[in-house]
């Protein structure tokens, strides 16, 4: 197992290399630069040019890349153009809302989707099944920003059940925290829920149609135990994959939802940073998400091994 993990960790290196080169070149190919953004709307060209030189942006690109990577390896992520804050502290202050939002939306998704998907599969062709299928199709077809707008209009303005925007940190109380995140979490989680429901149903159907379920039934296993023991454990592999995908999706896809609901998370930081050409912040966030991506996939693979003995050997 440790060999497997070590191998996986090592395989992160080429991925990160590719990601860092791609994102560095992209970011530096984008027209405009942070110097102009730092000086504001009415700054003169002279002032901008002077700042650019000061920031080392007139150096050759390759040199800038190696400087950046060198600093990264030393644990120095650089400094943001906003208020001269270090990228590390900026990310730390922005990652909390994103994590909260991701966990919240995943909880909503998983708690609803998995049982519903199983019920639908168990009662294939029933009204419940059709309802679940319809909801999951709607979810897959409804972009989060549309759903977000709708939720905001309905629950925030018309019914006033939830605040339309404005993030409340955990330090302001769990209730307020969750309340401020409910609408965005639904907007973000609905598509994941739909996907999970669909996958749960599909893989459950596949499992239920399998020979070993027939065999289990033939040896007299009770229906509940059939679902809860035989079927669920075999469905877990699919569920773990979908769950892993959803975590990545929730973290990386939060940009639109976060800026819509004014949640100061990583996604919003990223979109804002693109606007102000905050090179180091953009690059670090993308790298961070890439690392996270790889880590989640690794954890998923390890969990596979726990669930399915066949994977353990390979």
């Amino acid at each position, binding site marked *: 197992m440790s060999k497997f993990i070590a191998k996986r960790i090592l395989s992160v290196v080429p991925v990160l290399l590719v990601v860092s080169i791609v994102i560095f070149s992209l970011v530096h190919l984008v027209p405009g630069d942070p110097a102009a953004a730092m000086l504001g709307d009415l700054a003169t060209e002279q002032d901008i040019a002077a700042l650019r030189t000061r920031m080392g942006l007139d150096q050759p690109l390759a040199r800038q890349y190696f400087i950046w990577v060198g600093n990264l390896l030393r644990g120095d992520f650089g400094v943001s153009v906003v208020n001269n804050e270090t990228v590390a502290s900026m990310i730390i202050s922005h990652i909390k809302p994103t994590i909260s939002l991701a966990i919240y939306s995943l909880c909503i998704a998983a708690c609803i989707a998995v049982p519903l998907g199983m019920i639908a599969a168990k*009662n*294939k*062709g029933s009204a419940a099944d059709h309802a679940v299928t319809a909801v999951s199709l709607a979810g897959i077809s409804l972009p989060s920003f549309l759903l977000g707008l709708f939720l905001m209009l309905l629950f925030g303005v018309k019914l006033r059940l939830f605040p339309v925007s404005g993030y409340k940190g955990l330090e302001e109380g769990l209730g307020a925290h969750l309340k401020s995140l409910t609408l965005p979490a639904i907007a973000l989680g609905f598509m994941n829920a739909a996907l999970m429901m669909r996958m749960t149903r599909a893989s459950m159907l596949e499992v239920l149609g*399998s*020979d*070993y379920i*027939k*065999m*289990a*039934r*033939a*040896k*007299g*296993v*009770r*229906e509940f135990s059939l679902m809860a023991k*035989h079927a669920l*454990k*075999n469905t877990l592999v699919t569920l773990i994959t979908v769950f892993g995908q959803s975590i990545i999706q929730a973290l990386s896809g939060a940009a639109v939802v976060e800026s819509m609901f004014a949640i100061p998370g990583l996604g919003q930081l990223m979109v804002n940073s693109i606007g102000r050409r905050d090179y180091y912040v953009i690059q670090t966030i993308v790298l961070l998400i890439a690392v996270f991506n790889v880590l989640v996939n690794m954890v998923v693979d390890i969990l596979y091994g726990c*669930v*399915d*003995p*066949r994977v353990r*050997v390979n």
Partner: protein
Amino acid sequence: MAEKILEVENLCTQFKTERGLLKAIDGVSFEVYRGEMLGIVGESGCGKSVTSQSVLRLYNEKNLAVYSGQVRLEDQNLFELSQKEMQKIRGARISMVFQDALSSLNPVFTVGNQIMEALMIHQNISKKEARDKAVEMLRLVGIPDPEGRFYQYPFELSGGMRQRVMIAVALACGPEILIADEPTTALDVTIQAQIMDLIVEMNRKLNMGVMLITHDLAVVAETCHRVLVMYLGQIVEEGLVEDIFDRPLHPYTKGLMASIPRLDSQKGEKLHQIKGTVPVLGKIPEGCRFAPRCPYAGAECRTKTPELKKINESQKVRCHLADTLSAPCA
């Protein structure tokens, strides 16, 4: 004759499909006696597997299958039981062995666990007893090092081993009837023989009735006492092995027998073939179901459905021409 333990009477199984109800088996009746081996043969799609699974009511009755007729296990009609009562029959009194052990054993549980499960469901015994018994079963079906194998997963075993494990699962609770649905099809020839030997041995040792479903006539000839020949959801001929192999009455049975390659046949001689193919279930011909492919079929055969008639003490046949064709053919 030995004690009759299972009696199937006028069993019909219909499937709910996109095109409405589809009759997969139509009025099948037979008995199984204690200690006997009953072979059920026929082409793929003739309904032999459906028959065996209908006996255990394995098809989902909510949205897939509609059963009618009777399946009596010692005067108890299985079709009248609740699902709960049915669960007590399955695996305990009637067990089943499937064709593909790799897909039929749950991949995520150890083989020992799967045998124990059957034991713990039906017998009120402790985990430890169940474990010991499971190891015992593994030994019984001829698995070397049963203690070690106990903790292995199905994918870690060879095909023959897996099949033995499945037989162990099926026999764990000492059933009165074992249904073996093409138990050797997926195996190598040498392993096939070993598994068949095992089934025959178990049949003798445990004195249970075995329903052997297969399309391998050679296996039937070697192991079974009686044979049912099925065609398109009906039994077309029933009889002792000797009867069927030596004096087949139904033209279809004759065709089957003629198509067995024989050592004494001439090299280069073409094997016998039955003309045409099995029709789709939805398009069952009128009259005798075999008529379109039957070389002897006359006018009556195409309009009137024949009954399964008793020809002699042990043999029944479903053919209008049974009497005229009773002379042995080529």
